[in-house]
C-alpha cells in the first residue's frame, strides 16, 4: 500500500515537468506577448521591461530559472499583467474561494447523489426511480453553463432570495448557487451510477441468501449490499473531481467569485505567462491529489485491490 502510494507520487513529478515544458513552449512560441499592445513601446523601453522580467535570456534558461525558483523557494514569479502582485499572491487570494465552494459542491454531489441512487434502486420502477431518470436526463441537457443563468434567473431576478454573484468573504448565501451550479450534473451522474450498481448487487445470489436466512431488509442493505454497490461510484469520483475543476473555471467567471478561474481566463487574455503556468500547475496538482485520494480510498475499501497492490 505504502509502496503503491510512493510509486504514484513518483509519477507526479515527471508528469508535471512534461506539462510545464509543454505549456511553456506552447505559450512562448505563439506570436505576441504580455507587453505587446496597440501602441508599440519604444525599443529601449521594451528592452528594459524584458530585462526586468528576465525575458531577454534564451528560452531554455528562462525555463530553468522558473523551475529552479519553484523547487527551491516555492516562488512562481511575478505576474506580468497585475502590477505589484506575484503569482503566489494571486493563488493565495483566489484559491481558498474556489476550494470553499468546490468542497461544498462535492458534499452536495455525494450527500444527495448517493442516497438518491439507492432510493431509486430500492423503489425500482417506482416514483423515485422515474424522478431520478428525469433528473439524469435534465442534467445532461442543462450543463453548468446553462444551469447557472437559469439559477440566477430564478433565485436572484425572480425571487430575490440569493445574490447573483460575488463572494463577500464566503457568507453562505454566496456559496449556495456556485456549489449547486457546479455540482448538479455530477450529482445526477453519481445517482444514476449508484442506482445501476445497487440494482445489480440486489439481484446477486448472496443477497438472495441473506433474504432466505430471514435477515431484516435494513440489515441486508446496510451491511451486505451498500459497500460493494458503492465501489463503482467511488471509482467514478476521480473523473468527477477532474470535471469539477474544469467547471470551477466557468463558475468563477460567471459568478465573479474572485476565485482562480477568473485569473486564469484574464491571464490568457493578457498573455500573462506566469499566471497561466502557475495556475496550470496548481490545477494539475489538485487533480493528481484528488485522483490519488480516490484511488487510495478504493484500495482501502476493496480487499481485492488491496491484495493486488502489496
Amino acid at each position, binding site marked *: 500500500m505504502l509502496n503503491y502510494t510512493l510509486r504514484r507520487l513518483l509519477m507526479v513529478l515527471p508528469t508535471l515537468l512534461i506539462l510545464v515544458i509543454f*505549456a511553456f513552449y506552447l505559450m512562448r512560441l505563439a506570436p505576441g506577448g504580455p507587453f505587446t499592445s496597440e501602441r508599440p513601446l519604444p525599443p529601449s523601453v521594451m528592452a528594459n521591461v524584458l530585462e526586468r522580467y528576465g525575458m531577454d535570456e534564451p528560452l531554455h534558461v528562462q525555463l530553468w530559472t522558473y523551475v529552479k525558483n519553484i523547487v527551491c523557494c516555492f516562488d512562481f514569479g511575478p505576474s506580468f499583467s497585475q502590477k505589484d502582485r506575484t503569482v503566489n499572491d494571486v493563488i493565495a487570494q483566489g484559491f481558498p474561494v474556489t476550494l470553499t465552494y468546490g468542497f461544498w459542491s462535492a458534499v452536495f454531489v455525494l450527500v444527495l447523489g448517493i442516497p438518491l441512487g439507492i432510493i431509486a434502486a430500492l423503489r425500482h420502477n417506482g416514483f423515485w426511480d422515474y424522478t431520478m431518470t428525469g433528473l439524469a436526463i435534465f442534467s445532461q441537457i442543462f450543463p453548468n453553463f*446553462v444551469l447557472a*443563468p437559469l439559477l440566477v*434567473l430564478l433565485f436572484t*431576478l425572480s425571487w430575490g432570495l440569493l445574490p*447573483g454573484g460575488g463572494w463577500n468573504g464566503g457568507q453562505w448565501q454566496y456559496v449556495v448557487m456556485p456549489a449547486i451550479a457546479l455540482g448538479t450534473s455530477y450529482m445526477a451522474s453519481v445517482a444514476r451510477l449508484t442506482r445501476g450498481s445497487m440494482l445489480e448487487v440486489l439481484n446477486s445470489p448472496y443477497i438472495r441468501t441473506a433474504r432466505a436466512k430471514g435477515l431484516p431488509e435494513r440489515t441486508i442493505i446496510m451491511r451486505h449490499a451498500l459497500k460493494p454497490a458503492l465501489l463503482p461510484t467511488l471509482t467514478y469520483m476521480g473523473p468527477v473531481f477532474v470535471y469539477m475543476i*474544469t467547471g470551477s473555471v466557468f463558475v468563477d467567471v460567471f459568478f465573479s467569485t474572485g476565485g482562480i478561474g477568473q485569473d486564469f481566463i484574464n491571464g490568457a487574455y493578457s498573455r500573462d505567462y506566469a499566471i497561466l503556468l502557475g495556475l496550470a500547475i496548481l*490545477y494539475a496538482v489538485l487533480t493528481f491529489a484528488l485522483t490519488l485520494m480516490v484511488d487510495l480510498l478504493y484500495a482501502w475499501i476493496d480487499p481485492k485491490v488491496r491484495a493486488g497492490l502489496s
Partner: protein
Amino acid sequence: MILSAARRRLQSRAFADERAPEMIASRSFWADAGRRFLNNRMAVFSVGMLGLLILFSIFGNLFARWSYEEIDWNVLGRIKEDGGPSLENGHWFGVDELGRDLYARVVQGTRTSLLVGFIAGPVSVMLGAMLGALAGYYGGRLDRTVLAAYTIWLAIPYIIFFVVWQAFFGRSMSQMILVIILVNWTAGLLIVRGQVMMLKNREFVDAARMLGMSDFKIIFRHLAPNVLWVVVIYTSIVIPEVIMMESLVSFLGVGIQEPNTSIGALLSQGAATMTFGTLWQLGFPAAIFVIAQVSLFYIGDGLRDALDPKER
C-alpha cells in the same frame, strides 16, 4: 376466442406467403440493428428533430431579413422596448445587445456548433480508435506507451490546454476543431483497445494470418468491421460532448472570434444581459442548445440499444 383467431391467422397460408420474403432474406448485423433503431420511436423522432436543426442551420438564412453582423440603428437605443421578437421589423428572434439580428446570429451559431461537433467528434473518435486498435493488436511496449500517455492526459483538466491554446493561436473555427481533436484523442481509445485484444485471438484472425495477410490488412479489413459498432456508439456519445465543450469555452470568452458566433457565445451574451429584461437573448439560444442535446442524447441511446449485443 380472440386467441384462437390469432392462431388461425398465424397458421394460414396467406400469412406465410406474405412473410416469406422477409424470412428468407439474409439478415446482416447492420440490417438488424437498423430495424431495431427504427422501432425506437424516440430515437427516430430525434433524428427528425436533428435533421430539422441541420436544415435550419443551412437554409435558415433564406428567411432572414438581416445579416448576422448588420446593426439595426432603429432599435439600438431602445432594445428592451423595441428589440424583442417581432414580425414587423423582420427580427424574428429579436436583436442582441448590439442591435444585430438574433435570428441570423442563431442560424450562424447553430451552424458553427453543429459543424464543430460533427467534424471534431468523429475525427477524434477515429484517432482514438486507431491508436487503441494498434495498441491492442501489437501489445507490449507500444501498448504501455499509449496507456501511459492516456493516463497522463486524462489527469490534466482539458480546460488548461484549451484556454491557453485558444488565447494564443487565434480563434477561428478550424483552430477550434483542431484543438478539440487534440484534447479529445483519448475518446474511444480504451474500449476499442479492449475489443481488439479480445478479437485478435479469434480463429478468423489466425486464419487471415496463416493466409499471409499483413498486419495492416488484418487490422483494417478484418478487425475494423468488427469494432465498428463500438466506434459508432462512442461517436454518438462524443458529438454532444464536443458541442458542450465548444459551448463552454465560448461561454468563457475564448471561443470563436466575433462577429462569428456559436451557440455557447450566444448563451453567454444572453446570460450577461438577462438582468436588463431582454430574456429572448438567452431563451432562443438555450432552446436550440436543448433541442440539439436532447435529440443527440436519444439518438445515442437508440444506437446503443440497437448495436450493443449486451442490450439484446
